[in-house]
């Protein structure tokens, strides 16, 4: 499998989307600045908090958008289409198996699963007493 760099158009789209993310982070930072100023926080403190928030958010947006849109073009070589289908089916099955195992693991720890108790009927799994009705039947 050969990996090739994406086209420059796709790269440009990625960079512009990253700038859009920075603008969105700045808008949220500006709204936070306004809210802090409305709530009586002093100007310098509010600006510091809003700028820190905006910078952190813009770095996060930049990285997330870059990872989402950065796609190296993959060219398969040396495989027949049947081999590729088998490989894709194997990968899908592995993912499904992992997902199923995770779901079963989560279900096994679900808190709604309570231990079986028959104590309301006068019989408990841990007690050594016989139920009252059973004792009466034995006496009769």
């Amino acid at each position: 499998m050969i990996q090739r760099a994406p086209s420059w158009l796709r790269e440009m789209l990625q960079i512009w989307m990253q700038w859009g993310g920075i603008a969105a982070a700045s808008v949220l930072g500006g709204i936070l600045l306004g809210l802090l100023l409305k709530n009586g926080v002093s100007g310098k403190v509010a600006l510091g908090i809003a700028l820190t928030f905006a910078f952190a958010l813009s770095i996060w947006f930049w990285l997330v958008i870059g990872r989402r849109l950065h796609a190296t073009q993959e060219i398969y070589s040396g495989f027949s289409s049947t081999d590729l289908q088998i490989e894709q089916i194997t990968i899908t099955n592995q993912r499904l198996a992992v997902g199923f195992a995770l779901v079963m693991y989560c279900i096994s720890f679900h808190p709604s699963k309570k231990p079986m108790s028959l104590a309301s009927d006068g019989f408990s799994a841990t007690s050594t007493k016989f139920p009252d009705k059973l004792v009466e039947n034995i006496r009769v």
Partner: protein
Amino acid sequence: MDFRNDVSPLVKLSLFHCGGALIIGGAFAVTAKCLSWMYPHGFLGWWIDKIELILVIVIVTALAIIFINAVVRLLASAVISIWKGFPHDSACSIVVA
């Protein structure tokens, strides 16, 4: 001349990043201007001022970081090119130009 290998870093720096920043900043400035025309005495102007302040600081800082990063990378590439004997890369086009 190979576009991707020779001039790609410079084009990325000037066109992609500066173009993106200009488009985003220009779009916000136009929107703010239109809103100020539509609502001349509204409370929206105060919020737009705050958002513009943060937007200008963040965008200029990001551009400065990208510019310094690109210059450092080009200088490092130039040093490595001189060290290895001018292979065909981005620094070669700068030295030739």
